[in-house]
């Protein structure tokens, strides 16, 4: 599903050159739940950004669902993200000026989908994450766990093959964290979605099908 070959990412400023990733080779199979672990600053978020096509590698190739992403222009990248990928962020990144339903509909806005279909799809995924009673609320009126469930609903509403989660439980207490993890597992097992998750939590990592560890921009195992 995802193949990274000889990936390298270097940040350059005038004075200094920082190597964020070095010689990364990684393959994620379809339906896999991969967790990436490592101390902060080890490059795991950079890796996720590259997989998510939010950032380009300095060298190396990224192949997702059979497509090489190197030569895509902005429009193609946008379309690819929209259809193949779903994002879950540590700090939720919900839009405060939109209510829950509108937030979830967001990815469908960038496809040719009628308003009615958008509504139906968003309601369906909110049902799935157990928030159908909060549809008219604004993000500021929700708890952290609820926000993250809305974010997950948003990630899956477009029916992407891959979900990228960047420390999805980082801002949540353990109970809420567990809820979110259950939800991700459900999506993996029942819907067969491929999930790549960055985490600090050893416990959560153990529950996933495979764990990759990073240290100083390098893959440890």
């Amino acid at each position: 599903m995802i193949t990274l070959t000889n990936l390298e990412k270097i940040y350059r400023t005038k004075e200094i050159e920082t190597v964020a990733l070095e010689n990364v080779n990684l393959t994620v199979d379809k339906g896999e739940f991969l967790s990436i672990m490592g101390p902060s600053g080890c490059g795991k978020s950079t890796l996720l950004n590259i997989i998510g096509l939010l950032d380009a590698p300095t060298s190396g190739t990224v192949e997702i669902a059979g497509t090489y992403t190197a030569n895509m222009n902005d429009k193609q990248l946008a379309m690819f993200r929209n259809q193949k990928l779903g994002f879950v962020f540590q700090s939720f990144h919900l839009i405060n000026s939109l209510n829950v339903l509108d937030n979830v509909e967001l990815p469908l806005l960038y496809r040719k989908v009628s308003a009615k279909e958008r509504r139906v799809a968003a309601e369906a995924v909110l049902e799935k994450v157990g928030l159908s009673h909060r549809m008219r609320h604004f993000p500021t009126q929700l708890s952290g766990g609820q926000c993250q469930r809305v974010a997950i609903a948003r990630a899956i509403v477009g029916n992407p093959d891959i979900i990228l989660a960047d420390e999805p439980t980082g801002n949540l207490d353990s109970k809420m964290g567990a809820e979110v993890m259950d939800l991700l597992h459900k999506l993996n097992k029942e819907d067969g979605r491929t999930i790549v998750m960055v985490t600090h939590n050893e416990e959560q990592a153990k529950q996933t099908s495979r764990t990759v560890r990073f240290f100083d921009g390098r893959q440890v195992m």
Partner: protein
Amino acid sequence: MLKVYFKQAWNLIRQERLFSLIYIVGTGLSVSMVMVLSIVFYMKVANIYPETNRDRILVAKSGMVSFENGRNSSSSLSEGMINTCFASLDGVEAIALISRKDGEFLLQPEGDPVQLPVTVKYVNTDFWKVFPFRFIDGKPFTDADQQSAIRTAVIAESLSRRLFGKDEAVGKYISLNFRSYRVCGIVKDASLVTRETYSLIWLPYTLADGYQPNSSFYNTEALGEFSAYILASKDKNLADLKKEAEAAVERYGKTLHDKTFTALGQPDYYWQSIFRFWSNSRPEYGKLVLQYGLVLLILLLVPAVSLSGMTDSRMERRLAEMGVRRAFGAPVTTLMVQVISENFLFTVLGGVFGLLLSYLLLYLSRSWIMQLDATFVDVLPEGADVVFSPSMLVNYQVFGITLFVCFLLNLLSALIPAWRASHRQIIYSLNAK
């Protein structure tokens, strides 16, 4: 899609009231200034009662005679010149003459020792065809009245009411500078907005003191005391008529005895005629356009920069949102369209506020605003007030201009911020607080 944008913008307005207020007031201020200017010019050139034929009118107000010794004289036109040049042109329906002769006119109301200062205009019978006044009672003075210089007068409704109350005024007599005139018709008042035709009393031009048929100033033949308003028939192309009229003037200018005459490019289209102040030079339209363009630019640019700054700050705050949208596949152009259309809601709200404000400003400045571009400003006639009728202010053209101004201002104030916000690196945006 647009509905979603507006929904979000509406929520933004509710969540950030003070900021939205500042933004809308800022937009409104700009719109109101531009609209004051636009409405003033609209009222000057659009078809407005009683000048409802402005789009079919050519105007010749003045001309210049050059003598063989090199001296020039310039003034308004003589009856002879107007008749020779324009009367026989094909497609001319009527030519209104308005005499420049004004002076002090005092009306002596019956049984009242206090005299009433009034505005009087000397016009010809065609005046009533070119400017379709609404006759409430009676009729215009006739050709016979005009030819025999019979003292008849058309008076405005307000004057009729003041002098005769509810009684029938047609057939009664009024005393003007102690001379008696028979009232032949009552018309609905014209506003001072249409100053060229505004009056309280209209008399046949043959009644003017010292009027002589076919006279001219100092034997210049061409110069006299009249302005001509030439009404083209409906099926005549106005540009063609203008060309033919110009040619006729040129031919005429060469036939004069030991002098030449030029009308300096006249007859004008109506809109051109409002810029003619001097009788001896052509208005420099290029300079005028530049001047007004500069003023409009300043009126739009100064607020646009400040609004851009505010939009930019707002975008800065919403960078994370932009990041999320792009992460979920929004192309840059879509985002720009979103920002600009969201902003349009703000701008339109400001536009509505601005339009209302411009009505207020116009009302407050009504005694002078119609002449804000004049070199010499006419003082309002005693006791008169400039009245704006609702149809001058509330109409599709004015709304259209407002919408266009909003659109322009919105583009000016949101384009760059939208571009900057949507072209940031996604990761930077996502991590922005």
